[in-house]
């Protein structure tokens, strides 16, 4: 089964989890946490860089999702992707608002250790899709995603109109989607 993003989602049993999630079964949130907790934590930790803040972020984001029962529908595609974006957006908000600003003194001790991707096929696909982007789109995307910068910051840094940055980011994601969906279908 292919999700809208061209990602195979049924191999891990996500379909059943989605059914349970939509049915508001009490076990669904726990299952989602058990299944995706490490991934969600990793996404939060990449942004916040502090272990405790990343853990809090994941818990709060999941709780918020659960409290909004209509936030996810099957047509949206992957529950995993939905949750990950929710957690990452929460982490970015925390970072930008300064409410959970890093305490420099504790950063080194608390900074999460990096782990390696073991799916080299996926890595190759991602790298190939990124390399195929026009340079200006790839640059904007790298600043946004890996630099955690806002579109306003990117516009300032590149000396571009805000609308141009938005368009480049949007096009980059759309092209990646097309490339990855094509790869996934092969």
């Amino acid at each position, binding site marked *: 089964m292919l999700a809208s993003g061209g*990602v195979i989602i049924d191999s891990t049993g996500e379909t059943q989890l989605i059914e349970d999630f939509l049915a508001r079964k009490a076990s669904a949130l726990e299952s989602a946490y058990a299944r995706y907790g490490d991934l969600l934590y990793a996404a939060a930790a990449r942004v916040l860089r502090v272990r405790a803040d990343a853990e809090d972020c994941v818990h709060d984001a999941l709780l*918020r999702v659960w409290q909004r029962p209509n936030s996810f529908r099957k047509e949206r595609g*992957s529950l995993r992707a939905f949750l990950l974006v929710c957690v990452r957006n929460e982490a970015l908000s925390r970072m930008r608002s300064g409410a959970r600003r890093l305490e420099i003194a504790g950063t080194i001790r608390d900074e999460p250790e990096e782990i390696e991707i073991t799916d080299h096929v996926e890595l190759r696909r991602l790298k190939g899709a990124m390399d195929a982007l026009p340079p200006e789109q790839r640059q904007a995307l790298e600043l946004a995603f890996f630099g955690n910068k806002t579109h306003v910051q990117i516009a300032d840094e590149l000396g571009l109109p805000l609308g141009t940055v938005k368009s480049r980011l949007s096009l980059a*994601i759309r092209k990646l989607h097309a490339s990855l969906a094509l790869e996934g279908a092969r």
Partner: protein
Amino acid sequence: MNDHIGEDAELFALGMLEEPERTRVEAHASGCAPCLQRLGEAEAVVARLALWQPPAKAAPRHVSVPRAWMAAAAVCAVAIGVTIASVLQARNLTARAGANDAILAAIATSHFNHTQFTKVARDAPAAKLLNARRGQWLYVIVDTPLANVRVVVRHGDQTVDLGPTQVHGRTSTLFVRDPGALARVLLERDGSVIETATPSYRDE
């Protein structure tokens, strides 16, 4: 519905939008199939990009328990009794504890059991132990504000001092993440055991 979200779908997925734009995008997409699909596609891409650099697993850590949660947990323990098995039940505490309470969130995402401590010392205060059935966390609630009570756990031949409880109003508490499955939990005062509890990890 007019005014489709357009490129805001990708900006949303990338975390570029703040409130109230996020809410606007979600509200529109929830009632617009093409926009919901576009949003889902963007999220799928971002999720795959996130796999590119995933960091870490959490390690055990201690958390100071907010006062609001302490009250909520105490009410919860008394009101619900032996076991609280459902996430939905835990959600009912949210209004009292606050949505940003990380400890409530931890409990909301796990099943847990409840055990009363057995007094060893005659003057030991009443105390309760809540623990996740899979050992993700434990939570000690002492019914009096004692700062000199230490929580010590035993597993096999190992004894580990988890530290002192924190005073919150008229109670004192200690929340510990990832303690694993423990044989015994002891409360000590001035180096002497004053009460004990045996965590339950059964599905009840």
